[in-house]
Structures are given as structure tokens and as C-alpha cells.
């Protein structure tokens, strides 16, 4: 299915105040790949992801999803294919109940109400917050909001899943549940995160960003275990790879 190929070409983006957040980013992601995007704070991860769903548009370079270039005109098509979880769950929850919020997307595609209900329930169940369905989102705890935000995107059944720090604020069990879920999701997924352990478990390929540029792009196992490289990019080995308290290796 060619429409799952994502091509990013020499992407440059400057925020209106002159901050150069992306400085020529190029990569190509093929169908079914699972990509971890890592990098220090301010490296440009969120900025990059926002380009993939057309929230920001590049100053230079181009992006295409499938064979469709991401432009203002093609937004409806793009957004139907790509589901994105933003870094800030508060930005993503805008209805009066969690249920309505998760149902918002499916309803926009005019699905019959039974189908909507099925989708809402299953997504809420997947992230483990079905019991919160009738509560207003602004009254949830930080992690509950995060889970709800993820559910809103799952309910849309996107072909490509883009997530900005999906595990932050989640408790370890919910994090584990999310990782399992993502493992079972066979479509393309792109995950920006500081959770190296998740990348290690989940993504076969990793892209390291630094100062708006791609520093490395390759197999996760190789990259994430390269102490020097990681150190250089303001990162660390996954915790699971660091000194083991049992055998004492470093």
C-alpha cells in the first residue's frame, strides 16, 4: 500500500520569532515501519511531527504521505490517514465528556452511532480508562488525560500513527499496556519520545534529531546501545541496558 509511505525532503522550519527549529530534515518511512524519534529537549521532535499532519507547513522542503503532498488543500485526506497524539493532552480534549471526546473523530466521519459507540468503548478499554467515560476531561489526573488523548486517536483507526511522548505521565502499567497495543498495531507508527526503553522494545528503527537535523538514522539496536553517540546527543542508554543491579555489569 503505497499510501503508507512517508517521504520528508530537506525540511526547514523557522518559528515566527526567528527560531530555526528544523534545519533540513530528510527521511523516508515505508509501510509498516515503526520509527522512534529521539533527541534532546528542543531538538525539534514536536516541530517535526506537527509537519506530518499539516499543523505547521515547511518554509522549505516538502513532505508527502503516500503520494499526496502535505499542503493546505490535501489536509482532509492527510488527516484521515494520519492520527496524531500531541505532546499536550489538554490540547486534544475539548468536549464535555471523555466519551464525546473520543467519539468526536468517528462522528465527523459520519459513522453510524452504533459503530461510533463500539469504537469509543474499545479504544477506551484499550487504554484502560473505560470507567472514566462519563467524566469531563478537565477533571482528570495528568495520566488519565494522556490515556484519553491516546484513545481519541485510536478511535479514528488511522493508517499511520504519530505520537509525541505518548508514555509520559502514564503509570508503568498503562505504559506497558500501550507498548503492547502498539506492538500489535501493524501499520506505520512514528513515536517521538524520551523513553529509550520503549523505543528499544518497540521500534526497529531510530532517528536521532539534534538542533533540527538528523544525526543518525538506523536500526535501533545499534544506535541505542552506542554509548558515545547517545552521550553526544544529550541522551542515555535505555535504563534496561544500564548497569544491572544483579550482575553488576555496566
Amino acid at each position, binding site marked *: 500500500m503505497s499510501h503508507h509511505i512517508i517521504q520528508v525532503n530537506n525540511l526547514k522550519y523557522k518559528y515566527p520569532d526567528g527560531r530555526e527549529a528544523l534545519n533540513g530534515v530528510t527521511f523516508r518511512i515505508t509501510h509498516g515501519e515503526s520509527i522512534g524519534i529521539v533527541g534532546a529537549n528542543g531538538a525539534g521532535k514536536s516541530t517535526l511531527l506537527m509537519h506530518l499532519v499539516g499543523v505547521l507547513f515547511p518554509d522549505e522542503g516538502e513532505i508527502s504521505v503516500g503520494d499526496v503532498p502535505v499542503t493546505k488543500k490535501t*489536509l*482532509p485526506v492527510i488527516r484521515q490517514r494520519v492520527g496524531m497524539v500531541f505532546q499536550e493532552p489538554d*490540547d*486534544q480534549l475539548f468536549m464535555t465528556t471523555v466519551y464525546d471526546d473520543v467519539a468526536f473523530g468517528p462522528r*465527523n466521519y459520519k459513522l453510524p452511532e452504533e459503530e461510533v459507540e463500539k469504537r469509543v468503548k474499545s479504544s477506551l478499554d484499550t487504554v484502560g480508562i473505560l470507567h472514566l467515560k462519563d467524566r*469531563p476531561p478537565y477533571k482528570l489526573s495528568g495520566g488519565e488525560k494522556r490515556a484519553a488523548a491516546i484513545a481519541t486517536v485510536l478511535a479514528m483507526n488511522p493508517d499511520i500513527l504519530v505520537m509525541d511522548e505518548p508514555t509520559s505521565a502514564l503509570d508503568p502499567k498503562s505504559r506497558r499496556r500501550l507498548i503492547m497495543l502498539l506492538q500489535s498495531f501493524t501499520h506505520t507508527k512514528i513515536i517521538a519520545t524520551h523513553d529509550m526503553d520503549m523505543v528499544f522494545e518497540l521500534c526497529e528503527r531510530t532517528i536521532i534529531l539534534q538542533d533540527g537535523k538528523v544525526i543518525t538514522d538506523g536500526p535501533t539496536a545499534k544506535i541505542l546501545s552506542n554509548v558515545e553517540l547517545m552521550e553526544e546527543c544529550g541522551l542515555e542508554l535505555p535504563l534496561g541496558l544500564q548497569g544491572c543491579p544483579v550482575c553488576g555489569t555496566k
Partner: protein
Amino acid sequence: MPNLVESLYNIRILDELAEKRTIIHNIHPLMKVLTTGVYLMVTVSFGKYELSGLLPLIFYPVVLITLADIPIVPIFKRVLLVLPLIIGIGLFNPLFDKNPMIVLPWIQISGGWISFFSILIKGFLTILAALILIATTGMTRIASALRIMRIPRLFIMQLLLTYRYISVLIEEVGRVVRAYSLRSPGEKGIRFSNWGSLTGQLLIRTLERAQRVYHSMCCRGFAGEYNVGREKGMGIGDIVYFVGWSLYFVIIRYFNIPAMIGSLMMGVGK
């Protein structure tokens, strides 16, 4: 500032009330909007000296409040907050209009007082009607009623976004004030010199946040229309609701029922 947080709290109370599922809540929003319209028109169309004729209008809020499970206290609090405005202007009537209107053996009541009470009751009823409408319908369903009434989409979207962002903004104000007070122990309120940067800051931040919210809506297929899933079609019951109430209002308007009851009673008494 407490004023602000309080108002947010009020919005939320009404929001939550609108989430209930009672007979009244289930009536089609369009019919509720129209019924409210008729009610308001009839209420204000009463002449300024017609006091008794107004009274049967009170059945509408009483029936709705009880049927829709609306808690009385918060609603009445709201009414009491708004009434002073009306009283302020209405109170001039007794001052300027001193013609005796009701002449009883032991007391004479001037037209000014009658019209004052008439304004007061009308104020009370109209405020109540608006609050009941929102508390049984909710903003999104009112929006869908407006859509059926062919109000342009752009305006409805604007209305709904404003509505959403009010919570976002006020919440943010509350949290910023909290953070401020945490780092300025011993200070009461916010120093004047910091007001400017604080509001400016808030405005710009809310602005950017609003853009993010809007984008995240678009990312989920938003195309200018809020879809409220559980909206059913209009049924006979809905139309009966509207027609029934309207009939009742019109009858009240043309016949002064309390006066009839009164004279009947008096007649019996004789």
C-alpha cells in the same frame, strides 16, 4: 479573580446538568429553543400593569425544573446575581408613577409599584427560562438547533469555539494566579506592576493554545460542524411539547386566569 473562577464553576454546573438524561433533556433541542422563544415573547408582551395575568407563566419553570432534575439552589443563585440590575432600573417606577392602581380598603398600591413588580417577575421568569434552556440542552445541542435554523456554520463554529476556550482561558488564569501566589508568599493579590505582563502573557499563550486545539480538532476530521451523536430525529412528542406549551402560553396571554379564579372564588364566597 475569584469572580472568574466562580463563573467558570457556574458554566460547568450547567454543563453537567445538561449531561443528564431526563424527559426534558431528551426533547429535541430545536423544539426547546422555539418553546423558550415563545415563552419569552409572551412573558415580555404582558403590559406593565398586568401583574396577576403573569403568574400562570410560572408553571413552565416549575414543571421543567422538577422534571429535569435541576437543583434549585445554584440556579436561583444565578438568578439572584442578575436581578439587581433589573431592580436598579425598575425601582424608579414607584418614584415616578404614583397613581393608585390597586385600591383596597386598607391599602392603596400605586401603579409604579405594580409595574415594578411586573418587571421583577418578568425578569425572574425570563432569566429562569434562559438558564433552564441551557441546563437541559447544553451548548452543543443548542448549536445543532441553530444549525437546523440555518444559522451560518461559521457563526456556530465561532460560538462553540468561544465557548470551549472560555474554560481553557479561565482555567489557565486560575493556575497562573496559583503559581504566582506560591512564589510571592505574604502578598495579597497581584501587584499592579505585574498585571500587564500577566494578562499579555495569558492572552498570547491562550492564543497559541487555541491554535493547537483547533488543529487537533482538524486532525480528527473537524470540518466546521460539531456532530452531536445522540441527536435523534424529531418525533411527535417533540412537536407536541412545543405546540402544547405554546398553546398554554397563548391562552394565558389572552385570558387572565388568576383573575378568573379569583372572581370565581369571590363569587362562591358571596
